[in-house]
């Protein structure tokens, strides 16, 4: 239902331009969840904002294809695109507190989201009833009361649930969740993830779940795509990627994630930082930090398909069985 | 806030340049001018601006530009005097109120709010009635108008930084309160105070001009911008240039000070842009 081919995003122009995303391609089938993993600066949020056309004016977006449910997104003008937003394409943002208008009640947000819905509503009471139902689905105990409150009167966890409910209220077909639990503390995070897990089975929408936490991605997603320095470096079924990572970066990420869970004497470090990889053309962007890097890696690396696995952007994919 | 920053900020730079030119004119102008500000010359009365008299002449034949520059000296001195007094008192009150909090803070701010509750001009007028007209009292009036503003700005800034590490360190080292307040704390909150100072001097000139214009401020024959405007008012219809040129000069001076204040504010913290005079 979503088919993206060779998406590239560049900020600025000329000398000062920054190529934040390049050669991003993936497909997402209906009802599936794609976990998009990467460190800060890897381009995961920018990719999704590009899909929803939420980038600032100085960003130039190019792609061979950005096809959503049969419609080519790039060829739509502003007004037509706006019709899709909210109703078909939606995004749940990272900071729930800032996402609501502080001078309006939660109920107000629902009421106006309700106006956007394709199937429409009758009188106001219908909208409110549906809103309450929506809030119940995200496990808010007293939905009627919550609707009457103002954002500053609710906790971060509560607001994130409301935001999720609000986004789902319009029944979009594709939902991007951009690190929705990063700003919340662990206990609340667990609850929100469980809600997501429950919802994805109840609704037939597709999800792109952005996170930097591999364990969350493992629990929630059907497929995983790992991004580094603006490119997808590995993409495959969750179980496969997690147990048999092919790209050195993925392997390192999983290793550090497991170490954090387990009991180790010292944590493995991936030397260097992501930003040195941006704007790097004609070579492997992960090169400088990769233990397997050599002269052979100094050309543009494309995604290759690995038998029985998925796609990897590496000329030396790790074929050996790695203990997860 | 250093010199290279100032040079990059066009607003502040423009303001600084114009202010400097203005100050130079005010300080040196009357001496350099070929005209005496108080020599009557009825033959040349009420002449429009010309090459000889750039601002024209008034009803007594005096060169208006020279008078304006002399008057500007007086107005500026009064305004600066008043603002400096307001700063001395207001900043001190604000520092102690913000630092100690408690009942002193509450009482002091209440009193400041009360002072602030009187419109600037009404307060000034009231004081003229109570104290009598004249130069020093105008300065005092300006002081009372701006005292609460400086107090409040200082107090709010002080409250924000009072628990910063370097202040705590000074306390632990046993430094006395006045030393902490004036040596450590004050320099760090000086930015908004200075911005307010430039804005206050600007409007202080307006207050003085206004008071003198209606006759309750500086008394003739001492020139001040307001006195000259009052002269110009009498003969406004036949000779509008006296009033016009004087007012324009005031506007330019105020513009310079406002630009300077704006520029300083932008340099110090771009987020403070919503303040007003």
């Amino acid at each position, binding site marked *: 239902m979503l088919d993206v081919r060779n998406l590239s995003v560049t900020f600025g122009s000329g000398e000062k331009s920054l190529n934040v995303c390049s050669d991003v391609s993936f497909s997402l089938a209906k009802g599936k969840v794609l976990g998009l993993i990467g460190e800060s600066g890897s381009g995961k949020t920018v990719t999704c904002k590009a899909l929803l056309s939420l980038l600032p004016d100085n960003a130039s977006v190019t792609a061979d294809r950005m096809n959503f449910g049969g419609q080519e997104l790039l060829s739509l003008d502003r007004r037509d695109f706006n019709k899709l937003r909210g109703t078909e394409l939606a995004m749940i943002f990272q900071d729930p507190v800032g996402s609501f208008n*502080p001078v309006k009640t939660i109920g107000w947000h629902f009421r106006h989201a309700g106006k956007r819905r394709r199937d429409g509503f009758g009188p106001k009471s219908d909208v409110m009833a549906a809103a309450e139902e929506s809030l119940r689905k995200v496990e808010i105990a007293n939905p009627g009361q919550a609707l009457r409150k103002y954002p500053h009167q609710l906790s971060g966890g509560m607001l994130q649930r409301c935001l999720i409910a609000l986004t789902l209220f319009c029944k979009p077909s594709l939902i991007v969740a951009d690190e929705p639990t990063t700003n919340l503390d662990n206990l609340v995070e667990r609850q929100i993830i469980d809600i997501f897990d429950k919802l994805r089975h109840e609704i037939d929408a597709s999800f792109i779940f952005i996170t930097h936490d591999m364990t969350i991605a493992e629990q929630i997603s059907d497929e995983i795509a790992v991004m580094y320095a603006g490119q997808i470096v590995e993409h495959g079924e969750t179980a496969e990627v997690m147990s048999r990572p092919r790209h050195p970066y993925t392997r390192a990420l999983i290793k550090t994630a497991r170490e954090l869970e387990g009991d180790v004497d010292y944590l493995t470090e991936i030397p260097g930082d992501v930003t040195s990889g941006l704007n790097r053309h004609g070579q492997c962007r992960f090169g400088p930090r990769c233990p397997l890097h050599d002269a052979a890696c100094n050309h543009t690396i494309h995604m290759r398909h690995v038998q029985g696995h998925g796609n990897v952007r590496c000329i030396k994919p790790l074929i050996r069985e790695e203990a997860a | 806030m250093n010199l290279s920053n100032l040079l990059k900020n066009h607003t502040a730079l423009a303001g600084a340049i114009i202010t400097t030119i203005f100050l130079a004119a005010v300080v040196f102008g009357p001496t350099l001018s070929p005209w005496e500000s108080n020599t009557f010359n009825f033959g040349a009365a009420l002449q429009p601006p010309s090459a000889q008299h750039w601002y024209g002449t008034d009803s007594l034949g005096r060169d208006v530009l020279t008078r304006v520059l002399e008057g500007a000296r007086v107005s500026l001195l009064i305004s600066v005097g008043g603002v400096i007094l307001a700063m001395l008192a207001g900043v001190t009150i604000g520092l102690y109120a913000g630092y100690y909090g408690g009942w002193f803070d509450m009482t002091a701010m209440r009193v400041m709010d009360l002072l602030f509750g009187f419109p600037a001009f009404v307060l000034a007028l009231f004081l003229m009635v109570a104290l009598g007209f004249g130069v020093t009292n105008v300065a005092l009036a300006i002081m009372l108008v701006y005292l609460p503003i400086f107090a409040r700005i200082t107090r709010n800034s002080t409250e924000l930084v009072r628990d910063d590490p370097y202040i705590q360190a000074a306390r632990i080292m046993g430094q006395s309160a006045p030393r902490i307040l004036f040596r450590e704390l004050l320099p760090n909150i000086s930015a908004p105070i200075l911005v307010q100072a430039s804005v206050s001097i600007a409007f202080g000139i307006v207050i003085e001009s206004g008071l003198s214009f209606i006759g309750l401020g500086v008394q003739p024959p001492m020139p001040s911008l307001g006195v000259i405007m009052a002269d110009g008012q009498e003969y406004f219809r036949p000779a509008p240039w006296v009033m016009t040129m004087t007012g324009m000069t005031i506007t330019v001076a105020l513009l310079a000070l406002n630009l300077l204040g704006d520029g300083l504010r932008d340099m110090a913290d771009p987020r403070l842009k919503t303040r007003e005079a």
Partner: protein
Amino acid sequence: MPAYLTYSLSRLIGALITILVGSLLVFLVIKAAPGDPALVVLGDFATPESIARFNAEQGLDDPLMVQYLHWLTGLARLDFGTSLSLAKGQSIGQMLAFRLPNTATIGIYAIIIAILISLVLGTVSAINRGGPVDAVSTSVSVLGVSMPDFWLGYMLVLGLSIGMGLFPSYGFVPVSESFIGALHSGFLPALAIAAPMAAVFSRTLRASLVENMDRDHVTVARSFGHSPSFIFIHHVFRNSIIPFIVVVGLQVRYLLGGVVIIERIFGISGVGSLMVEAAFARDYYLVQACAVVFLTIVLAVNFIVDVICSMLDPRRVR
């Protein structure tokens, strides 16, 4: 009780206390001022006996506190005493009652003009942020704040009255006589006061709008596909109104100050010109009364602004 009502009540009490203390201050300052009411009324050559008689009649021999309370209770009954010299023996209350509507008219007129101009200017600047219109309006704003309002008044008279004959340069037609007349004769004075205020208002509005345009909830609203006009009205403008109203309230202080001179220049019989005349006539009671009236107006406006803001912004009520 709804939160904003309790809040409003506490603000109201605060305002009343301030008026009380303020009136005490005014009273004491006048008392301390050099100058003798007796001499003002009776003239400089009054005999000691007549002075003594005057003081006894006026209660000026009573202890200070008694005098103050006497005056204060009079104020509560709206009895401001009688004029000393300006209009000997006339009830100050009556004078005020006659003059207040004129001041109010000009004041309200000025604020409305300022708000209208700034709504347009501020919004256009914000939407056109960084563009030519923005630059021009910012320059105009800085200029507007730099002009002394009484000078602007004269310039307007020069241009629009003497020059084009569109408006009268003197005299004011009260609203009670003719509404159109008031609008016409009051336009120049109101505009003179409004210009600097409009400058401040539009800069505030612009800054506020720009700040709100960058907020997260605006991006979220865009992601929901709401139309740009909806987003502007409900997410940007609605959130910018409060700082705007606060600034409007703050500028009333300035407005009342400006009114004093403007009334004098344009010959408007308002409280401002009354205070000036009283000052010249050394009419202490009248000056006293005017000061308190001005203070009360400012506090009343502050109170109203507070209440409105607490209703508009649910976060303000604590």
